[in-house]
C-alpha cells in the first residue's frame, strides 16, 4: 500500500489473471450487470447457434460468418478483460493488505478491574470487548484506546514506516486491526467485529467486490440501454424493408450492424473506468468508502479547509521584532532571544533563529548563563528567563503589561525609576504596534526586561508556498474555498486574504461548521471537508465528501466517506481532481462511442443492401473493397477500439484546472470530432489489411 508506482498495464502479473478473468466473466449472471455487453453476449450466442445449424446443413459463406462470430465474442471478452485488468490492479493492493490480516491471538481482559486476561482467537472478538495489547502484539481488530499510550506501526495500511502515537482520549484514540504496537501497552475497546474491520473494508473496496453502481453510472447505464433499444428497432426493422425490396439479409450481418451501432465502447469500459477511479484514489492513499463519494468529489462546489496544516504551516513563526520608541532593534532581539532559549516550541525556536539571522545575535549556550528559565503556563501566559540581576518576560500583550505594572509596584518601595519608564506613552506605543500586528493577522508577543517594555515580537502564520495558486486554480474550476479557523475574525481575514481563499469561518466551532455546511447545501451546493476529531464527526457526516484523517478518532472515521491514510488535509484538492477525472473519462468515452456510429453506418449500410440496391454503393465513401470486408472491418474495429481504449479508461482523461467551457471544447474536439473521424480511418485500414490477408 505504499505510494509505489501502480503496476503497469503490461505487467504479466495482472495480464495473465485478467485474461482468465475475461473468460470467467462470461457467466451470464456477471454479464447481466452490464446491459450493453449482456445484449452483445445474447446476440453472439444466437448467431453461434445459427452458425452451428448452418454448418450442419451446409449454409452459405460459412467462413465469413465464422469470422464475424469470432469478433462478436471478442467484443464481449475484451469488455470483460478491461474490467478484469482494472480489478487486477486493485487485487495486487488487496493482497498486500491481506497479509496484514493474519490470524492473531487477542488478550481479552476480564474481571471488574481488568487485571486478568485470557488468550482468545482474534476472530472471536465481539464489539465492546476490551483487550490488552502490549509491545510487539498485533492489534486484533479495530478499536478505541480507553487506557494507555503506545507507539504503533501502521505501515500495513499507510505504507508509512514511522510509528505513530495512539493514546486514550483526544483525537488519536483510534487503532486499526492488523497494525502493530511497538512500545508500551494499550487497553482497547473493540469497535468492529471480525470481517468488518477497516482492513476488511479496504480489501473489499480495492478488490471492487462491494462495488455498487454510482448515481451517474446508473444514469449512464440507462442512457446506454435506451440507445441499445433504439438500435434494436433500427436493425430489427431492416429485414422487412429488405423483404419489401425483394431481398433478404443474413442474420449475422444484421447482428454485426447492431453490435457496431450500440454503444459497446463505453458499455465495455464503464465499470473499468469506475474501478480505476477508486484505484487512483487508493494510489493516492485515500480510501473512498463508496464510488458515490468519488463521484460527489467531482461535483464539489465548496471546499472547507482547515487553516492549520492545509493553508498555513501548523505553527506561527517570528517574522519581525518591533521595538517601542527608545529601544533599538538589537536590544529587543537580544532580549527576545534570551527569553526564548529554553523555549522548545516552534514559536520559540523561530524567535531564536530570527534574532540570529536577521539581527546577528550570536547563539548562546544556555548552560553558561546561570539562568533560570520560566516556562509558559496557561495562568501566566508568559515565559521567560531570570538571570542574575535581570528578568526577561515574553508573552501575551495584556499579560506582559500586567507583569510590568506588578514589577513597578513591587520595586516602587526601593525607589528606582523603573515604574516611571513604563509611562502611559510607551504603553500606548506598544499597544499600537500590537494592534497593528493583530489586524494584520499576526500574533503580537510583548517583551519586557526588568519591568521595562522593550517591544513586540511579530508572530506570523506562514501561508504555505503555492497555496494561493492552488486556490486560484480551484476558482477557475468553479470551486469556492472556505478557510476554517479558530482564530478571531481579524486574524482570519488577514490570512484568508493572504492565502487567497474565497471566504473564511473564524472562531469555528463544531456547531457553526455544521451550520455552514447546511447553509451551503441549502443553496444546492456540494460541500467537501476533512476532519479528524470526534467533534468533527457531525460535520463530516453532513458534508457530501467528508475526508477523515487516518490519525483521527473512530467517530470521525465512521462519519466520513473517505479516509486519508496519510492524514494530509491538503489532499482534498487532489481528491476533487480525481473525482472530476472519473466523470470526464466517462463522458469522453460515451461521446466517442456515440460519435463512432456515423462511420459504422457508412461501412455497413451500403454493404448490407448492395445485393438488391446496388445504387447504394455510392454511400461507400470509404471505398471498402467488398461488402463482406466492409462488415468485417466495422466489427473488428468495434472490438479492437475497446482494447485500444483500456489504457485511457484506466489512466483517466487528462484533467486541467480550467473553466468548464474550455474543458468542454477541448474534450469535444478530441473525443467528439475524433470519435467521428477515427473510425473512418480505422475501418478503412482494417479493410485494407484483411483484404490483403485474403480474409474477406
Amino acid at each position, binding site marked *: 500500500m505504499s505510494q509505489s508506482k501502480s503496476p503497469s498495464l503490461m505487467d504479466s502479473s495482472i495480464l495473465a489473471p485478467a485474461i482468465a478473468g475475461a473468460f470467467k466473466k462470461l457467466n451470464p449472471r456477471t454479464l447481466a450487470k452490464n446491459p450493453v455487453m449482456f445484449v452483445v453476449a445474447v446476440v453472439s450466442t444466437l448467431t453461434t447457434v445459427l452458425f452451428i445449424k448452418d454448418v450442419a446443413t451446409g449454409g452459405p459463406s460459412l467462413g465469413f460468418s465464422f469470422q464475424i462470430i469470432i469478433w462478436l465474442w471478442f467484443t464481449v471478452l475484451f469488455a470483460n478483460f478491461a474490467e478484469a485488468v482494472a480489478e487486477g490492479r486493485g487485487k495486487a493492493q488487496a493482497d498486500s493488505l491481506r497479509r496484514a490480516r493474519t490470524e492473531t491471538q487477542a488478550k481479552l481482559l476480564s474481571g471488574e478491574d481488568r487485571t486478568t486476561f485470557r488468550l482468545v482467537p482474534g476472530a472471536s472478538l465481539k464489539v465492546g470487548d476490551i483487550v490488552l495489547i502490549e509491545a510487539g502484539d498485533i492489534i486484533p481488530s479495530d478499536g478505541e484506546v480507553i487506557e494507555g499510550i503506545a507507539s504503533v506501526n501502521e505501515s500495513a495500511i499507510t505504507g508509512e514506516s514511522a510509528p505513530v502515537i495512539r493514546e486514550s482520549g483526544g483525537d488519536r484514540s483510534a487503532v486499526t486491526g492488523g497494525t502493530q504496537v511497538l512500545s508500551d501497552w494499550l487497553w482497547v475497546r473493540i469497535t468492529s467485529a471480525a470481517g468488518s474491520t477497516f482492513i476488511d473494508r479496504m480489501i473489499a473496496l480495492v478488490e471492487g467486490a462491494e462495488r455498487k453502481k454510482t448515481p451517474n453510472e446508473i444514469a449512464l447505464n440507462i442512457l446506454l440501454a*435506451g440507445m441499445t433499444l433504439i438500435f434494436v428497432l*433500427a436493425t430489427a426493422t431492416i429485414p422487412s*424493408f429488405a423483404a419489401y425490396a425483394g431481398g433478404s439479409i443474413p442474420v449475422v450481418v444484421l447482428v454485426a450492424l447492431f453490435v457496431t451501432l450500440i454503444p459497446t465502447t463505453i458499455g465495455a469500459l464503464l465499470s473499468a473506468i469506475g474501478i480505476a477511479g477508486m484505484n487512483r484514489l487508493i494510489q493516492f492513499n485515500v480510501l473512498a468508502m463508496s464510488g458515490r463519494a468519488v463521484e460527489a468529489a467531482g461535483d464539489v462546489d465548496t471546499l472547507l479547509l482547515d487553516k492549520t496544516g492545509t493553508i498555513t504551516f501548523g505553527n506561527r513563526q517570528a517574522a519581525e521584532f518591533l521595538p517601542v520608541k527608545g529601544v533599538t532593534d538589537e536590544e529587543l532581539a537580544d532580549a527576545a532571544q534570551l527569553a526564548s532559549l529554553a523555549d522548545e516550541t516552534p514559536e520559540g525556536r523561530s524567535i531564536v533563529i530570527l534574532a540570529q539571522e536577521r539581527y546577528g545575535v550570536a547563539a548562546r549556550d544556555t548552560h553558561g548563563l546561570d539562568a533560570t528559565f520560566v516556562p509558559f503556563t496557561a495562568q501566566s501566559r508568559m515565559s521567560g528567563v531570570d538571570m542574575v540581576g535581570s528578568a526577561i518576560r515574553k508573552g501575551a500583550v495584556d499579560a506582559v503589561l500586567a507583569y510590568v505594572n506588578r514589577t513597578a509596584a513591587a520595586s516602587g518601595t526601593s525607589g528606582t525609576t523603573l515604574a516611571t519608564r513604563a509611562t502611559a506613552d510607551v504603553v500606548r506605543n506598544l499597544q499600537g504596534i500590537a494592534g497593528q500586528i493583530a489586524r494584520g493577522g499576526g500574533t503580537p508577543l510583548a517583551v519586557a526586561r526588568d519591568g521595562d517594555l522593550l517591544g513586540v515580537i511579530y508572530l506570523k502564520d506562514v501561508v504555505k508556498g503555492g497555496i494561493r495558486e492552488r486556490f486560484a486554480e480551484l476558482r477557475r474550476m468553479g470551486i469556492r474555498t472556505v478557510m476554517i479557523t479558530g482564530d478571531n475574525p481579524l486574524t482570519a481575514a488577514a490570512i484568508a486574504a493572504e492565502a487567497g481563499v474565497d471566504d473564511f469561518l473564524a472562531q469555528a466551532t463544531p456547531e457553526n461548521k455544521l451550520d455552514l455546511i447546511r447553509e451551503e447545501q441549502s443553496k444546492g451546493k456540494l460541500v467537501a471537508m476533512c476532519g479528524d476529531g470526534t467533534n468533527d464527526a457531525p460535520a463530516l457526516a453532513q458534508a457530501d465528501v467528508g475526508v477523515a484523517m487516518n490519525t483521527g478518532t473512530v467517530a470521525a472515521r465512521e462519519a466520513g466517506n473517505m479516509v486519508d491514510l496519510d492524514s494530509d488535509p491538503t489532499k482534498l484538492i487532489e481528491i476533487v481532481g480525481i473525482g472530476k477525472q472519473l466523470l470526464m473519462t466517462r463522458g469522453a468515452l460515451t461521446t466517442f462511442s456515440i460519435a463512432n456510429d456515423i462511420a459504422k*453506418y457508412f461501412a455497413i449500410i451500403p454493404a448490407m443492401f448492395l445485393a438488391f440496391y446496388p445504387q447504394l454503393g455510392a454511400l461507400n465513401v470509404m471505398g471498402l473493397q467488398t461488402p463482406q470486408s466492409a462488415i468485417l472491418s466495422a466489427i473488428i474495429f468495434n472490438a479492437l477500439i475497446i482494447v485500444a481504449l483500456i489504457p485511457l479508461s484506466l489512466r483517466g482523461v487528462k484533467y486541467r484546472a480550467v473553466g*468548464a467551457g474550455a474543458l468542454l471544447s477541448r474534450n469535444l474536439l478530441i*473525443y467528439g470530432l475524433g470519435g467521428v473521424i477515427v473510425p473512418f480511418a480505422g475501418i478503412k485500414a482494417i479493410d485494407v489489411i484483411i483484404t490483403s490477408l485474403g480474409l474477406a
Partner: protein
Amino acid sequence: MTVNGWMQILVFCSIIILLVKPLGGYMTRVFNGDRTLLSPVLVPVERALFRMAGTSEREEQRWTTYSASLLVFSLAGFLVLYCLQRFQGALPFNPAAMGGTEPGLAFNTAISFVTNTNWQNYGGESTMSYLVQMAGFTVQNFVSAATGIAIAIALIRGFTRASGKSIGNFWVDLTRCTLYILLPPCIILTLVYVYLGVPQTLGTYVDATTLEGARQTIALGPVASQLAIKMLGTNGGGFFNVNSAHPFENPDAVSNLIQMVTIFAIGAALTNVFGRMAGNQRQGWAIFAAMGILFLAGVTACYWAEAAGNPLVHALGVDGGNMEGKETRFGIALSALFAVITTAASCGAVNAMHDSFMALGGMIPLINMMLGEVIIGGVGAGLYGMLLFVIITVFVAGLMVGRTPEYLGKKIEAKEVKMAMLAVLVLPLAMLGFTAISTILPTAVASVANAGPHGFSEILYAYTSAAANNGSAFGGLTGNTPWYNITLGISMWMGRFFVIIPALAIAGSLAAKKTVPESPGTFPTHGGLFVGLLIGVILIVGGLTFFPALAVGPIVEHLAIGLGQTF
C-alpha cells in the same frame, strides 16, 4: 435556386426572428399571471371559467395530477369528437347532408385532432359536416394546441422552480393559453383571411356551370376561422382535401406568407419564454439557434433538390426545377419553404404535394419529422421535445466537464435520463415498427400508389407523420383502410402521450430539485459550442436511427434517378 427565391426565404426568417422577443415577452406575462394588454377584458372571463370549473389560479398541481387532468381532458375530447362524427348525419349544420363517418375513420380522425396531428384520411368537403368542422375540429385545434403549450410551460417551470412540488395548474394554463394567446390573433387572422378571399360561411355548397357547360359543385364553409387556428396552433388539418394548396384555403402570396409565419410564430417565441422564465434569454436563443440552423439546412437542401429538378425530365428536353405537384402561384422556393416549415413545425398543412417532390426534396420533410419535430416544432411540443434532447445532450457531454451534468442549475440524473430516453424511443418504435409491419403486409402494401423505394417512402412517411403528430401526408397512400386507420391512430397516440407523460414526469422531478448556482465549473449551455453539440446529438441520436430506412427509401430513389433508373 434563384435570388428571388432566397429573398423570400430571408423575408420569412427575418419576420420570425423579429417576432420571437415581443411574442415571447407577452406569453411569459400570460403564464406568469402578470397583467397584459388584454387583462381588463379577459380576467373576468377567466375568473368565471375557473369558478365554473371549480379551480383557481392559486391551486397548483403535482406532475401526476397535471398529467391526469391532461389525460382526462384529452380522452373527453376524443369521445366528443368521435361521437360528433358518427352521428353528424342526425345533427344540425350539415347542408351537404353528410352521413355518419364509419368507425375506423372516426377513430383515426378523433385521435388525429386530439393529438394535434390532424392527419386526414378523409376529404373535408366530401366527408365532414360544418358542425364537425366547427364544434369538433376547430375546438380541438384550439385546445390541443393549448395543451401542447401548457406542457411546455410546465416543463419550463420544472427547470426554473427549486424544491417545489407543483408544476402549475393544467386547467389554468389551458384556459389562459386559449384565451390570451390563441383566440385574439385568430380573430384578427380570420378577418384578414376573409379580406384576402377565404370563404367564411355557413351557407350551402354552390353549384356552378363552367364555360364548357359542365356542372360543378363548389365547396364552401367556415374556412377562414379554421384556417387561422390551423396554422397558429400547428394543427394543419385542412378544411379542404388539398389543404393550403386550395385557392380558397390559400389564395395568394400574402396569405401564404401569413400562414407560414403563423406556423412558426408561437413555437419560435416559446424559446424566448423559456429563456425569460429561466432568467437568461440567451438560454432561449441558444435553443432557437439550434432549431434555426437545422431549419436552414433543411430549407437549403429541399430548395436545392426541387430547383435542380428531375434529370429524367431534363433528358426529355424540359429544363428547370421540379414543378410537379406545386401550385404555380407559389413556385418552387415557396413550396419547398412551406414543406420544410410545415414538417419542421408539426403543422402538416401543405401548399404542394410532398409526394411529387424529388426524392431528396421529400426526404427533408421526412427527416424533420423523424427528428421528433424539434425544429421549432408543434406549439409547445417542439420546445418540450427539444428540451428532452437537451437533457440527453447535457448528459452525454456534460460529464466531460467533470461534474454531474446540470442544465439551468438542475442536476440531470437517472430519472430524467430514463424519461428522456423513453420519449426518444417511442418515435422509432412507432415510425419504424409500423412501417416494418406494413411493408410486408400485403393489404398494407396494396394501398401504395408507386412501386419500389417511392412506395416504401409513402408508407414510411405516413407513420412518421402520424407518430411525430405532424399530419401532413406524402400522398399516394390510400390511408382510409382499417389497417391504416387503426395503426396510424395508435402511432399518433403513442407519439403524443408517450412523450408528454415523460416530459411532465421530468418536470415534476426537476421542480423538486435544488437549483445549483452557476459557477465557472458549470457546463455552459448558452453558447455556440452547446448549440453545435445539441445539433450533433439530435442528428446522431435522433436521426441516425432512421438511416437504414432512409437508405432504402428516398436515398436509393435519388441515386437511382441519377443513374436513369425508375421503379
